[in-house]
C-alpha cells in the first residue's frame, strides 16, 4: 500500500489561503508599502539579512539542522523560509511589516527566526521541544526548577537540594532520594532509578547522576544534550552495544548517542555486507523464529507494541514509548530485556553479521499483530 503524502495537501491549502488574502482589498497597499520599505533602503535589507544569518548560525547546528556546522546553503535555506513566512500575505506578519516603521522591521522578523529554526529542526528535536521545553515554560512543577526558588519542605528547589550538606556528604538514604524522585514522576522523567538491578549504593549514584543532569538541563546551557543523556543515553548506549556492536567495542560518548539518534544515518551497510547479512538470515531464520516465539511469549503487549513502533515504524525510543503510553524509561527497560534475550544469539555472530539480528527482529515484529494495550494515537 503506497503511503499518502500529506505535504502536497498542505501546500494546496497554503496556496488557497494566499490566494484568498491577495484578493482582500488592503493587499495592494500593504504590498506597495513593503516594497517601498525594502527597495528604498537597500542597505536596510542587507543589514537585516546579515544579522539574521548571524543569528541563525548561533543555534547549535547538531540540534537545529542535524549537521556539525552551519553551511551557507543551510543558512540561506532558513533565511528563505523566514522570508516566505513574513512575506506571506496570508499571515499576520505581512500586515505588521506593512505598517511598521523601518526601525521596527527587524524586531518583527526577529520573532519569526526562532519559530522557523524549530520548525526546520530534525523531527526528534522538534518532539523534544514540544514535549519538554513547552512544559518547562508553562508547567508549575518545572518552573520550580527553572526559577530555582527555595520551595517549601516537600518540594525543595534543586539548588537547595544540592546545597544541602547532608546530601553532599551522602547522608541521604536511598529511600529519601528515590522518594524525592517519585514525587516528580509527573514530570515524566525516566524512572531509571527503579530498575531492578540497581540497589543500594548503585541506586543512589544513579539518582545523583540524574540530578546532576537535571541541573545542567535547568541551566539551559546544554539543554538538549543533557536531556538526551537523561532520557536516552542509557538506552542508546546499551542498545548500540548489545545488538549492532560487539560487547565493549562501541564508544560510549555523546557522539555515539548522536549517531544512534540520527534517523538519517540510514543503512550504513555496503552491498557486500548486505549480502552477508542475508546469508546469515537465511541460515538462521528458522531457528531464530522459534527462539523469539519463546522469548516474546513472555513479553507484555505494550512491550511488544513498543518494539514494533521502534523497529518497524522506526520511531525514536522516547517517541515509541510515548506511543504506548509509557515514560521514556520504559524504552530503557524494554531494551534491557531484549538485549538480555539476544545475548546468546549475539555471541555466535561476527561484527559484520550483527546487523542481521536487528533486521530479523524488524521482520519478526512486522509480522506480529498489534495486541491490545495502551497505545496513544
Amino acid at each position, binding site marked *: 500500500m503506497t503511503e499518502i503524502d500529506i505535504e502536497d495537501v498542505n501546500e494546496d491549502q497554503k496556496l488557497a489561503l494566499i490566494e484568498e488574502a491577495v484578493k482582500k482589498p488592503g493587499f495592494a497597499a500593504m504590498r506597495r508599502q513593503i516594497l517601498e520599505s525594502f527597495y528604498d533602503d537597500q542597505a536596510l535589507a542587507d543589514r537585516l539579512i546579515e544579522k539574521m544569518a548571524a543569528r541563525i548560525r548561533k543555534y547549535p547546528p547538531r540540534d537545529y539542522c542535524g549537521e556539525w556546522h552551519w553551511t551557507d546553503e543551510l543558512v540561506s535555506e532558513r533565511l528563505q523560509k523566514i522570508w516566505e513566512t513574513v512575506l506571506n500575505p496570508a499571515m499576520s506578519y505581512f500586515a505588521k511589516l506593512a505598517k511598521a516603521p523601518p526601525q521596527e522591521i527587524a524586531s518583527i522578523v526577529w520573532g519569526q527566526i526562532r519559530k522557523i529554526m524549530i520548525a526546520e529542526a530534525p523531527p526528534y528535536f522538534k518532539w523534544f521541544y514540544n514535549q519538554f521545553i513547552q512544559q518547562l515554560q508553562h508547567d508549575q512543577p518545572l518552573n520550580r526548577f527553572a526559577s530555582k526558588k527555595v520551595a517549601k519542605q516537600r518540594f525543595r528547589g534543586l539548588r537547595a537540594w544540592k546545597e544541602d550538606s547532608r546530601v553532599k556528604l551522602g547522608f541521604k538514604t536511598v529511600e529519601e532520594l528515590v522518594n524525592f524522585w517519585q514525587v516528580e514522576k509527573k514530570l515524566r522523567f525516566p524512572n531509571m532509578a527503579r530498575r531492578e538491578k540497581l540497589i543500594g549504593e548503585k541506586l543512589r549514584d544513579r539518582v545523583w547522576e540524574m540530578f546532576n543532569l537535571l541541573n545542567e538541563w535547568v541551566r539551559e546551557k546544554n539543554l538538549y544534550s543533557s536531556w538526551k543523556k537523561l532520557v536516552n543515553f542509557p538506552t542508546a548506549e546499551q542498545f548500540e552495544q548489545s545488538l549492532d556492536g560487539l560487547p565493549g567495542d562501541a564508544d560510549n560518548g555523546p557522539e555515539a548517542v548522536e549517531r544512534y539518534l540520527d534517523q538519517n544515518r540510514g543503512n550504513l551497510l555496503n552491498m557486500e555486507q*548486505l549480502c552477508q547479512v542475508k546469508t546469515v538470515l537465511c541460515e538462521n531464520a528458522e531457528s531464530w523464529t522459534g527462539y523469539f516465539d519463546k522469548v516474546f511469549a513472555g513479553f507484555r503487549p505494550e512491550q511488544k507494541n513498543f518494539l514494533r513502533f521502534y523497529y518497524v515504524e*522506526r520511531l525514536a525510543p522516547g517517541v515509541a514509548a510515548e506511543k504506548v503510553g509509557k515514560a521514556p524509561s520504559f524504552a530503557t527497560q524494554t531494551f534491557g530485556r531484549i538485549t538480555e534475550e539476544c545475548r546468546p544469539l549475539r555471541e555466535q555472530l561476527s561484527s559484520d553479521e550483527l546487523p542481521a539480528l536487528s*533486521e530479523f527482529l524488524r521482520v519478526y515484529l512486522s509480522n506480529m499483530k498489534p495486541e491490545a494495550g495502551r497505545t496513544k494515537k
Partner: protein
Amino acid sequence: MNDKNGLVLPINYNLWPAKSQTILMAFVQASEGDILTLCPVVNDFKVAEFFDLIVPAANTSLACDLVIMGKLRAGFPATALYSGLDAASNDESIRLCLAMPDSERQRLVADLDYLQKNTSTVTAFKVLRGTFLPKYSDAARWRRKFVRRWQEFRLVSLIAAVKAQPDRFPQYLGVKAAIEAIEQNLKKNLKPEAVVEPANEESVIKISASAKRRGGISIERSETLELRRNLAKQLKDQKQTDAESEKLLNGSDADLLELAMRLFPARR
C-alpha cells in the same frame, strides 16, 4: 519467455514529470495485451524498502545494482516505455537491456513474485530485499516524492494512450468526458491520484480520508462516476468478477483508465 517480461527497460521520458530529475528504468513484471505491469527500477540500494528487490551488480548482466520497487507495480500502456527500443539497438546500453538472458529474466520475475508473497521471518530472507525505512530519513522522503512522480507518470501515460485511440472505446462509456475532467484536475494540480494500489478496504478508506482533507474530492467524483458505473456494468456483463478488476474499479483515476483498456482491448 514473453516478449518483454523480465526486462529492465528505459521509460518514455516524454511522459515523466518534467520537474523531476530522477533517473530510473522500468522492470516489466508481466504483460497482457497492450498493458504492461511495470515496477520502477533505480540503482541506489539505500532507498530500498521492504517490498523492493535488490539485485547486486554482480548478479545481473546489466552490471549495476538494481532496486526493483515491487510495491509500486502498476499497469501501464506499452507506450510508457521508451518508444525507440528497436531503432535504438545501436545504443549500447539499450542493447544490453534487450539482451538480458532468458534465465536472468525468469529469475527476476520469480524473485519479485516470491518477495511480494513471502513476508514471514522464515521465508522473507530468501531473496535480497530492502528494509523498513525510518519515516523521517532522507531515503523515505525521497521515496515519498518519487511515489508521487511515478503516480503522475502512470496517469499521464494512460491518458496519452487512451487519447491516441479514440475509436477503441464505445461512446456510451464516457471515457472522453472522464479524460477531460481528469486532465483538468491535473492542470489544477489537485492530484486526485492518492495511491497507486487502492487494493484493499484500508486503502480506500485512506483515499476517502485524504479526499475529505483535500476538500471533498473523492474517488467517487462526479466527473469519473459515469465511467466507473459503465465499467462496473461492463464487468458484470462480461462476468469478470476477479479481485484484480474489482480493485481497479474501486481505485484511482489511473486504475479506471487501466480497467477500460483491459476491458476494451485494442482492435487488430
